[in-house]
């Protein structure tokens, strides 16, 4: 469903980024980068509100003619950005949420690994498999 999935660290550098059409990757990287501004805007708008599940999911960040960008932020300010193709039949919000939840679960699994230092790039095979499963659902 997703064409590009990215995990951005707290300091706004990418921990993991992967897109399905391997050509034109740069376009997606650029999109993710610009979406970070929107994410930051949304985070600051929340202010000191209580953090709960709803607020972790940021929703649609911005749509373009080709695709839509969704965002999700964890409690440790790690951001997940997902780019989905607009041509797909509109993915329901719940589906996007469930995808983010799976991402979050896999990310916590990666963090649990003591050999993973927070801030490193993510090389976990399990994480890769999960992302692949999410991205290959359409293609």
């Amino acid at each position: 469903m997703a064409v590009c999935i990215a995990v951005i660290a707290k300091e706004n550098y990418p921990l993991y980024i992967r897109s399905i059409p391997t050509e034109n990757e740069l376009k997606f990287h650029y999109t993710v980068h610009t979406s970070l501004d929107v994410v930051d805007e949304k985070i600051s708008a929340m202010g000191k509100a209580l953090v709960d599940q709803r607020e972790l999911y940021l929703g649609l960040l911005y749509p373009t003619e080709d695709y839509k960008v969704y965002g999700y932020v964890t409690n440790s300010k790690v951001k997940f950005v997902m780019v989905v193709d607009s041509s797909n039949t509109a993915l329901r919000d719940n589906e996007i949420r469930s995808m983010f939840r799976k991402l979050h679960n896999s990310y916590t699994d990666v963090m649990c690994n003591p050999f993973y230092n927070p801030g490193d790039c993510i090389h976990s095979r399990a994480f890769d498999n999960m992302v692949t499963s999410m991205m290959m659902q359409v293609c």
Partner: protein
Amino acid sequence: MDPGPGGAAAGGAGLLLPLSDTEQQRYSELFSLCCSPAPEGGSAPAPAAGGSKVGDLFRASQLPADTLHQITELCGAKRVGYFGPAQFYVALKLIAAAQSGLPVRIESIKSELPLPRFMALKNDIEMRYGNVAEIHGVKFQLPHPTLEKNSFKRSDEGDKKQETKSPPMSPMCSPPASPSNYQRIPLSYGYGKSRSGLEQPHGVSYEARHSTHQQDGPATGNYGSKSALVHSSLSRSLSVEREPQDSSNYPDDPWRITEEQREYYINQFKSLQPDLNSFISGSVAKNFFTKSKLPIPELSHIWELSDVDCDGALTLPEFCAAFHLIVARKNGYPLPDTLPETLLPDYLQQASFKPKRDCTLLDSYSESLPVSQQTRDFNRTELETVREDPTNSEPLILFDVATSVVEPKTSVEEMPDKSALTQDANSDDNQALNISTTAKTIPKDFKPSQHLSVKTVVQESNTLKARPRSRSYSSTSIEDAMKKGEEPPMPPPRPQKSHSRASSLDLNKIFQQNTQAVKSGWLPPPPALPPRPFVSQTEQVSEMELHPQMNRAPSQTEESSPTRKEILLTQPPSKPIRRKFRSENQMLENQELTPTSSVTSSLPAVKPHLPAQKQSSKQKRAIQTAIRKNKEANAVLARLNSELQQQLKEVHKERIALETQLEQLRPVTVL
């Protein structure tokens, strides 16, 4: 390749190199190996062998480096700058000469020589030549799993060297020629290099001996990718860090842990964490496994494989699995992508406690969804921990096991397993009963868990770790475990149907109407019965207003002060009512206070009190309803009272406990 180019090319190099048929076959196949994508024949640089591949191949011949240099010079590659077919063949012949112990000279290759031997070439060579395979089979007597045996023998390969029938492996593990085995290069290459100098004389003599036997076929070169493994160098390096293993009889599966290995792992576990049922934390395990000097990404992958419940800590079976993977990896086995079945924690636990279990049963363990497997494994883990440590928080854990039993899994094994283990675990009959009851009850039954949690509040630390990790996004898993561990021993008192602080009259009325509607059926008789408890409550209620009344308060002086507060709070709503009917109510309450007089008697007392008129009858009815409502309200409030008082007591207790804790924690300063 046909022999034409071979001979012609050799001639082109200025040498008349007689190549036998087998030699030509071998050389051509090696050449094609080294320049795989290139076309055959020709003289242009295109068919030249790739320098790196050639280099690897030559190193695989296990000749010392200077010999190889000599060979390359002699064959003309240095001169022409590339390894054409001619140069390559000459080089191979020179290698053969060197391996047979002849000096590296052009003259030496004029004679008939055995084929050069290379260690650990690609498998595709085997594929191409069937005769090679069978020879290979003859020579290569160590099947794949028994390599593990080698890895754990202290130093048996010395004996192996001497056996002519033993596979003609040189004692050192050689670097692989094929770049595909990248994983083994960093591991084994170093060893190969370090030992090549030492072992060369042995190797040469050994191979010379073998060369007389092996005139046919390139036997030595064709080993499986896992063959050139495992020798004294590796086992010694292992022993530096870990105790060496006794010889073990291995089944076919390299991922199976033998008893000696298991004992070793358990000892290592104990060295890190004395309690066998507890966990090794991530950082401790990281330090320990880093000592194995495997690269961090591989260790990370091993951790991913072995920590099935992804909690950042290793239980004993998880630790054994991780250790085993590390050992296997050090011996050159590529890491699997998924955890082999024999390394699953539940398998390992069963194997450890039921060694006679049939393997087929365990094969039926379908590797179901990871989540369910995690919970299943984890429950089994908990079961095992329960078994070993009787002082552990059994009831709570067994409750989880009950849930797993209820789930439709591989039931055949689970039931006998569970029953056997629970029997072992529970010497206490009560707990056995508890298990049976919990097994029968619905897992979602709340009460048993509460009872169980009562017992386990004391052993919070174990409970915390034994909890399966829950996925919650508002808090971390540890927090969840904490929350569950701190579950109050008793359920909080059920909130009253009515609102606690009856600040608004309407709500009270609504509630009373509701209750009245509910209780309308039995309203008339109850006023006779309840007066006694009610009296005590109503006494208090009315006492605050009507001080000069009965002195029954002293009976409840204990609760009088808090209840007074409660009553005072509830006074405002009731006052308007009372004020309305004050005249009548006061009379009524006065009469209610008398314990002996029933309310019904008060009613007739009320009746003659009022003028027998329509208005009075209406008023009477109104009064009666009011009385009923008041009584009900009183009853409700009294109940509420008692519950709030209980809560208050509990809160007081908690507060005292917290204060004492604070006192203990506060440093002795600031005065």
